[in-house]
């Protein structure tokens, strides 16, 4: 898949990796707001920090004057982080006003993002929100009193729907509405849910059920069917001895007749498996590396087992 990024996205990425002065790459020491989103396991992670000019009398009139990021992620994740910082610094707004910035603003700033990369912009908006909540705690601002639901992150604890990316039912329910996600593909593009093993797509209580719950049931054409595993059965012929008895007899013969001879020469033999009349052996020690001995020993082992256990036995070198 080749790159379908806008000029702006590529420009921001290249400026960042080359450490241009215009870049917002970095981390503010002792920041006024600190937020993180994503993880290395998921493939991208953003650490976002900002510094404010504090208003001596009213924290609500603090102004964000500087924003910095450190990002582990792809080209568009890094560009989206740059965009987030640039938008905030341009606005010179208060942290509470910054909450109005959405992932859409980041996408627009970049002049668009490929559908499959929308989650990069969502990551930016999530990290910003976390940083503002962090600022509120540091400054003793009661966001709830301003009508901002600060408990929603805690409320996101709940049953895991997407186990691959660790996303819960309350979180997905909220994101489906906030970001107006109408299909499983849109959910995956925005928050990654269902983007790996895909088993949560049509499972009971899975992504399709959450979509149906939010938007009403749509007629579906595709139903995934579970696989039908067929239980294992024993292989090989039908020995008169039980498989356990046969294995014991094989071991006994090898211990008495075969292994002492091999050990005498500095080698040994291990049974890997027995299936019906097939005995899988692995030579060890000097025998393992001796190409000439392999077939001789196979014949010797096989003959001993044929003579003393069952004439139908065959030995396979592993």
């Amino acid at each position: 898949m080749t790159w379908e990024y806008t000029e702006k996205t590529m420009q921001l990425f290249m400026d960042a990796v080359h450490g241009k002065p215009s870049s917002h790459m970095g981390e503010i020491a002792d920041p006024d707001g600190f937020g993180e989103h994503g993880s290395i396991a998921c493939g991208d992670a953003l650490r976002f920090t900002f510094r404010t000019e504090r208003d001596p009398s009213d924290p609500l009139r603090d102004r964000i004057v500087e924003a910095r990021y450190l990002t582990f992620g792809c080209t568009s994740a890094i560009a989206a982080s740059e965009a987030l910082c640039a938008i905030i610094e341009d606005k010179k707004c208060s942290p509470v006003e910054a909450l109005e910035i959405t992932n859409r603003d980041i996408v627009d700033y970049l002049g668009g993002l490929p559908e499959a990369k929308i989650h990069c912009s969502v990551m930016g908006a999530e990290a910003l929100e976390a940083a503002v909540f962090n600022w509120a705690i540091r400054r003793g601002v009661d966001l709830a009193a301003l009508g901002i639901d600060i408990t929603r992150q805690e409320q996101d604890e709940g049953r895991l729907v997407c186990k691959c990316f660790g996303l819960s039912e309350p979180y997905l329910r909220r994101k489906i509405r906030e970001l107006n996600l109408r299909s499983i593909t849109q959910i995956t593009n925005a928050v990654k849910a269902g983007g790996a093993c895909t088993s949560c797509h049509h499972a009971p209580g899975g992504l399709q059920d959450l979509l149906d719950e939010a938007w009403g049931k749509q007629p579906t054409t595709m139903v995934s069917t579970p696989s039908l595993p067929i239980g294992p059965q024993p292989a090989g012929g039908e020995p008169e001895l039980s498989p356990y008895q046969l294995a014991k007899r094989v071991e006994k013969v090898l211990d008495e007749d075969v292994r002492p001879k091999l050990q005498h020469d500095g080698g040994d033999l291990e049974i890997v498996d027995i299936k019906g009349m097939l005995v899988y052996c692995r030579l060890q020690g000097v025998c393992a590396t001796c190409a000439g001995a392999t077939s001789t020993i196979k014949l010797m082992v096989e003959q001993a087992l044929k003579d003393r256990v069952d004439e139908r036995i065959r030995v396979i070198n592993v």
Partner: protein
Amino acid sequence: MSIVYADNNATTQVAPEVVQAMTPYLGEQYFNPSSMYEAARVPAKAIADARATIARLLGGVRPDEILFTSCATESNNAAIFGAVKANPARRHVITTAVEHPAVLNVCKELERDGLEVTFLPVDARGRLDVADLVRALRRETLLVSIMHANNETGVIFPIAEVARITKETDPGIVFHTDATQTVGKLRIDLTGELAHVDMLSFSGHKLHAPKGVGALFIRRGTRCRPFLVGGHQESGRRGGTENVPYIVGLARALELAAETHESTEERIHHLRGHLEAELTARIPLLQVNGGEAERLSNTLNISCHFIEGEGILYQLSEHGICASSGSACTSGSLEPSHVLSAMKVPFTAAHGSVRFSFSRYNTEADVDRILAVFPGIVSNLRRLSPYWDVQRGCPRPEAEHMLRSPDGD
């Protein structure tokens, strides 16, 4: 700026000799090889010659054991679905967790059809444990499909041994190998070392023939039903008018690979070794995926911990260097490479993997161009990474535990 093409496991440049061999059949020799008139003899003979050449170069098999297809994906589909159709009484298939999607997803499709599939694991070095295959074999096993070499890491599987064990266990089991990455790179001897292999797939565009042509070796007597059903072409085993120019090109490409095998192998091995040694020396916390296993001489798969692969590829591309990555952002899925995941490569590395793969057209100058920019690209991205301590040139203390594999071992 000239291109440094180091993505030959994805596709290769078409050899000029191949183009030359194909040209008549794209021009005046357009006749349908199945037609009766005199003029059709020329393309018909060209196909017969190509089939004989390929049969000879795969170890002297019978020409009628070679089937032409459109690509390796078709060959794999034909082999697997064909074997399943021909053996309805058996319902179990064995493959590995690291196959190319052209085998892996076909096997997942079989699961949906109600068959049982065992996906053999690999160890952290990318190697298969033959004992796992032994334990997986059962009375109702109908097919074992194991790739010859892995496209991402270049790790070579002991196909001669696993094929022998399979056929010694039960000659009724069909043994198939996807040899797309090895035909043209390793010597293939289907009457000697690989005498137990029943079916072998490969394609042209990995060995300097064009895209759109592949082949499937089916040993005489192997139970396999046709996949692409149609006319009498390929003795009724694969319908569709023969793609004459491409079949001619495939045979010519295989000839060239055989002629240049020795010199190429030695040179490529040296190029890869030089690149690997220099990168390992210059970049901290770089791991070579599959480096401790036997692997193809042309492939180098490395992971730079704590950075993401797509950003690396993008910057390489800015310098005219073509490579690929197992990162989630380049795969079209959100998961990193299934091969590296099966090897339990830690997440810090799986997302930052880069694969360089060489061909006989690569030179020492190519390696120098990569070496001139790659360490800088890695440090650029590490500077941006929340997990990397730029001053100390190592991971931040709180990130160090992430270097362990997902299982914690």
